């Protein structure tokens, strides 16, 4: 990719990330950290690409590519499950009637 185009993307993405999170209430900090952890699980795509371009006759390349895909998939799947479980607890903003016994 053209170097400067990428730099512009870097810059805009950085501001986006900063803006998106700046309005998050403290109560959601942990789920959000977990959620952003899930989002960078998209590294899986890069890992698949790397493994897909690895030379099938080179065991070391295959092994490393395999490890990359394995770890990327774990990041994505684990990150999703954990985030979803945490957020499931925030189901409704008004749980008053459920809480009272």
């Amino acid at each position: 990719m053209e170097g400067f185009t990428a730099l512009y993307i870097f810059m805009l993405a950085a501001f986006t990330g900063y803006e998106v999170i700046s309005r998050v209430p403290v109560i959601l900090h942990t789920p959000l950290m977990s959620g952003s952890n899930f989002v960078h699980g998209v590294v899986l795509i890069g890992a698949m690409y790397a493994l897909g371009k690895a030379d099938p006759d080179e065991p070391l390349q295959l092994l490393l590519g395999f490890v990359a895909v394995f770890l990327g998939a774990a990041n994505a799947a684990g990150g999703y499950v954990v985030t979803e479980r945490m957020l499931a607890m925030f189901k409704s903003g008004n749980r008053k009637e459920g809480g009272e016994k």
Partner: protein
Amino acid sequence: MSSNWFVSATYFIVATIFILGLKAMSSPVTARKGVIWAGFAMVAATVITFFIPGLQNVGLMVLAIVLGGGVAWYSGKIVKMTDMPQMVAIYNGMGGGAAAAIAAVELIRGVQHDAMTATLLVLGAVIGSVAFSGSCVAFAKLQGIMKKAVRLPGQNNVNFFLTLFTIGIGLTIGYADNPGGFEIFLFFVLALALGVVLVMPIGGADMPVVISLLNAFTGLAVGFKGFVLGNPALIVAGIVVGASGMLLTQLMAKAMNRPIKNIIFAPITGAAAESGGEVTGSIRDLSALDAASLMRYGQKVIIVPGYGMAVAGAQHKVWEMAQLLEEGGVEVVFAIHPVAGRMPGHMNVLLAEAGVPYEKIFDLEEINADFAQADVALVIGANDVVNPVARTDKSSPIYGMPILNADLAQNVIVVKRGKGAGYSGIENALFYKDNCRMLYGSAQQAVAEVITHVKALEV
């Protein structure tokens, strides 16, 4: 060519949904929807990647996805809510590891890159490796496998030179026409060692900030990999996470009044703690019955939960007790320190799990003025976050950290397992105050006893 266009279009939509998903996650009402959207986007991105022309080793790819995804899915499902922080740490480490492994494949394949690409490739590899090994150490610490904070002699110099040396070797490899296998190997060993050395000396109290920082690191590494692989979706997702992670880290560090550079370069260790001021006075305890009556006949009770409550899994009992007291006309609220527990918001999650409504949970700034009007501050398994030396003792390593002013309440009851110091190893002056009494026992059992007595008082 047309299939390539389709792949690119999908990636574009995926990146957009990720950003919208993260935004949705910023409000309790839409948070769950946000992560579900992002989940669909992730699946779409993964499936469409198989359609990139010329990909080999597809069988191996599927196997790795099924294995890695399966193991993580399962472990994520069974993990206890209290162990969430270390799970986030380990999944984050895996992402960093993936980024590092991608870099390794690229380096070994010896693809020619221009200077900027090579630099980002190497930086991504270093950052990814640091995130991987650092997260493993963080996991080990939170899981209790590794208890001690180990500090090397001349730690800061070691960090500095190791970083320089690692990046130096990395750039040599990155710019080389055909880098040797040994150099590449050495480079990754050094980069991994750097992560271990960086996180090793950091005590558990600072762990939330570290996890958040490592999370941001992984994001950056992923973004850099996106540049190397020419994939804008990776760049956008990675950098957005990197930037938001940096901001989150700053917010957390600010809440602790510990600048990030202090956390990394001057961690609170046992040695530092010893230099803290002497505390005089004596510690007195009280019975569960006394605790119950103090609260039952009070007007306002503020509960300060900490890691001890999480470890004992006592949040349900605590909420049961709070409800009982409320039925008796006592006002009960929860006060949460920004870094209570092992992650910011950790306590909020646990209390939400137990069914405590948002309206009863307050931040440090919202509640601190109220302690003076409270009859009882009930501190459950929290320590450093209520230590008044942070306000008074300039020689203390936690001096200046904002704390919950539990000591200003009329009575302070501290539920605590034993007489040990807090995670930072600093003696707590609160326990020696005249208005403070200790209720010894695990949070679960102590609160259960209080509940029994509160019930008895109703009759």
